[in-house]
Structures are given as structure tokens and as C-alpha cells.
């Protein structure tokens, strides 16, 4: 799980162009949206694309994203249980 969390943090930094950020700067349990990383709605769409592209997870119901993107840990947990690649 720790390996996946680190991998995910690196992918988030690269995909969302979070320049100047290192994986350690992202709190594993902090909210990704709002107070945490301060991501916006376009970032949410990029994360949905990332899940499909890298892990084969198709998020049909966009409203589910609110739950899945609560934190990197929650996201990693969801990926571990649902990944097809």
C-alpha cells in the first residue's frame, strides 16, 4: 500500500503540474480538494483520466469522485480494490 501511495503522489504531481512539490509535501490523509492541495474541477477530471489510464478504472458515476478523492490514502485504497491493470 505504501508503495502505491508513493506512486500515486508522483503521478498526481506530474499529471497536475504541481511544480516545486515533492511526494513528502502531500499529506497522505489531507483532503485533495478545498483546504488540502487546493485542486480545482479540471484537476478532478484529470484524476479521473489518470485512474482509467494507469489503473484501468472507469469512473462512470462522477459523483463517486467526491468520496474517492477524499485523500491520497482513500484513493490508493480504492485503486487497490478496483484496478484492472
Amino acid at each position, binding site marked *: 500500500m505504501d508503495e502505491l501511495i508513493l506512486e500515486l503522489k508522483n503521478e498526481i504531481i506530474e499529471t*497536475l*503540474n504541481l*511544480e*516545486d512539490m515533492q511526494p513528502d509535501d502531500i499529506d497522505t490523509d489531507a483532503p485533495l480538494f478545498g483546504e488540502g492541495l487546493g485542486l480545482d474541477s*479540471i*484537476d478532478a477530471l*484529470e484524476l479521473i*483520466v489518470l485512474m*482509467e489510464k494507469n489503473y484501468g478504472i472507469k469512473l462512470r458515476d462522477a459523483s463517486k469522485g467526491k468520496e474517492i478523492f477524499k485523500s491520497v490514502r482513500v484513493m490508493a485504497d480504492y485503486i487497490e480494490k478496483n484496478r484492472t491493470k
Partner: protein
Amino acid sequence: MIKSWVKITDKSVTLNGQMMDFPSYGNALLTEIYRSKVKDYPKFFKMDALCKLGFLGSELVIQDENTNRFVPREDRAVILFNRSGSLNADVNFQATLQPDDFFPSPALFVYTLPNIITGEIAIRNKYLGETSFYVLEKKDSETIASQIVASFQDNITKSVIGGWVDCVDENNFEAVMFLCYRDEENKLHEEIKNILSK
């Protein structure tokens, strides 16, 4: 009257005719200008090269104005021109649409319109005046000057962030941007043409 102007190419930066010292080139030059002169707008890193170019051009001329910023105002317009539209972002977006690797990027799609720059500048600075982006066949200084001078006829606009912002790709771009004020002596037209020829 032109208050200040900037020229940014992939190789150099000139503010009011004075060369600024940035050793980088191309896309790295844009990042270097941001880190040196702006620093407080991380959204910069999400912009495409065209938007970064226009954003930095606006920052340099507005900083040079040295007045209170970020106060909502209706009397300032943003009017820009180029030749390549948003071609660079379009090509990058198209690369995410390959049949065997079809993952269209929402972040890239956001920048597949050139007028996003004018919006970014207006949002950052709380400008509520006109925002326009014209795509021309070439850098036609006569058309650009005429359009900007005409924008003052609405009796609301008192100043304009205007100019040329063209990006062929991340390492091939040119911006000539300026901050100008309404001119009662009708010299502005010639001043704009002169700046654009530099």
C-alpha cells in the same frame, strides 16, 4: 500614451527597451521569469505556453506601472492579437486523442482557445472591462493599433493591456505587450505601431 511595454521572445526579454537578464531559453525562460518576477500564482504551471507568455507579459507591464493592483476596475481592457491562435495547445491536445491511446486531457482542452489568456489576465487583476483576442493572418500593426485606439470610444475604457502574443510551440514564441492610456493628442496609433515594430 504608452506607459510601459515588454518584448518576450524565446531568447530574450526587454522591458521598456532595456534588456532583462534571464539566461534561460524557450519554455525554461518562461519559468525563470515567473520564479523571478511573479512567484505567487501557482496556476501559472497549469497554463499552456501561449497563456504563460501572455500572463508574464501582462505581469511585467503591470508591475512596471507600480500602482495599487487587484482592485476591481471597469476602465481597463485587455485586447490581444496573434497569428497562431491556440495551435500549440491544439496539437498537444490532439496527441492525447490517439485511437490506441485515447485519454483526452481536460487540462489541455481548457487551453484550446487563445482568448483564455485575456480571461486569465482579467481574473488575476480583477479587470471588468472589455476582453478580446483577435487572430490575424500576420502581425499587422495598423490593424492592431486601430482596434486598440477604437476601444477607447466607449467612454468607459481608460487604459488597455494590449499587444501581440504568438506561440508556435514551447520554444518558438514572441510577445510584444504594452499598457496604454487614452490619448487626447492622437499619438497612440503611431506609438503602438512603433512598439510593435521593435
